[in-house]
């Protein structure tokens, strides 16, 4: 490919990215959850792929560079997997969140993790 051809291809990738940005803004305006998920987050993944592939040239790096990146992503997943059970399991895993368990159902989430502005002062047992 000629040097100008490279310029053109980068500009084309940028134009696609801008198009996807517009989709990610317009899509959620329909206020349909599935459409929002696809247009906002699905499109974000596609945009990230395009940036990594064409701008960062990740796919032409030595394979171990890809392993470094994927390894760090895997570390993130491990962190999440280690923390998530304690976050989501309200009766606790390694401890009991007694003040949460005693709250009426539906109010406990916001009390444990919720906003200070929304939080009620409740005695903790």
């Amino acid at each position: 490919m000629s040097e100008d051809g490279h310029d053109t291809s980068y500009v084309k990738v940028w134009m696609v990215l801008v198009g996807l940005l517009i989709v990610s803004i317009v899509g959620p305006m329909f206020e349909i959850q599935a459409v929002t998920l696809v247009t906002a987050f699905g499109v974000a993944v596609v945009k990230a792929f395009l940036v990594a592939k064409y701008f960062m040239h990740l796919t032409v790096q030595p394979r171990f560079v890809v392993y470094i990146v994927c390894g760090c992503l895997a570390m993130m997943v491990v962190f999440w997997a280690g923390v998530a059970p304690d976050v989501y399991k309200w009766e606790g895993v390694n401890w009991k969140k007694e003040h949460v368990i005693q709250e009426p159902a539906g109010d406990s989430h916001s009390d444990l993790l919720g906003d200070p502005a929304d939080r009620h002062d409740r005695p903790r047992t």
Partner: protein
Amino acid sequence: MRPIANTRSAAGIPTGRLAVWWVVGSEIVIFGGLLVAYIMYRLSHPEWAGHAANTNVVAGGLNTLILLSSSLSAVLAHQAAERGDGPRAARLLGLTILGALGFLTVKSIEWTMEIQHGFTITANSFWSFYYTAAGIHGLHVIAGAIIMAIVARDAREGRELHRVELIGIYWHFVDLVWIFLFPLLYIAK
């Protein structure tokens, strides 16, 4: 004086580039942990949708456009550096720095308006996440702009042109982080 090694014979990749990829890897863990924590809290808090409705989508979208465009100028600067055209690489890096300044300007205006409306970092957990995530990202933008200015200064004189690619990889990663921050903080309502 011994020259600084710039190529790993075993890895077959310049040392600087390898180092930048390690930096990117560590940043993935930093930002990834923050974003995953945000997602976990967000799923546990439907009321955060109401808080997110107060973010400025126009400002967030404009900043996304600015970062995407600055990524384009960064990759074109890399291309110019590969051709040995230092002055053009420096000019394109200058454009990228302008993008960084534009991003920070929009962010400053946006934050000023939000703080004036009472949406401060202590208002509630959503805004704590919002300012922490966007603030750490903003610090990376500032750091990138400073490093780019140094690289551009050398590139203008045709020196250390390989660094143009290195700062480009970092800058694209900063762009990439924002690509995920934008829907999480601005779109998901």
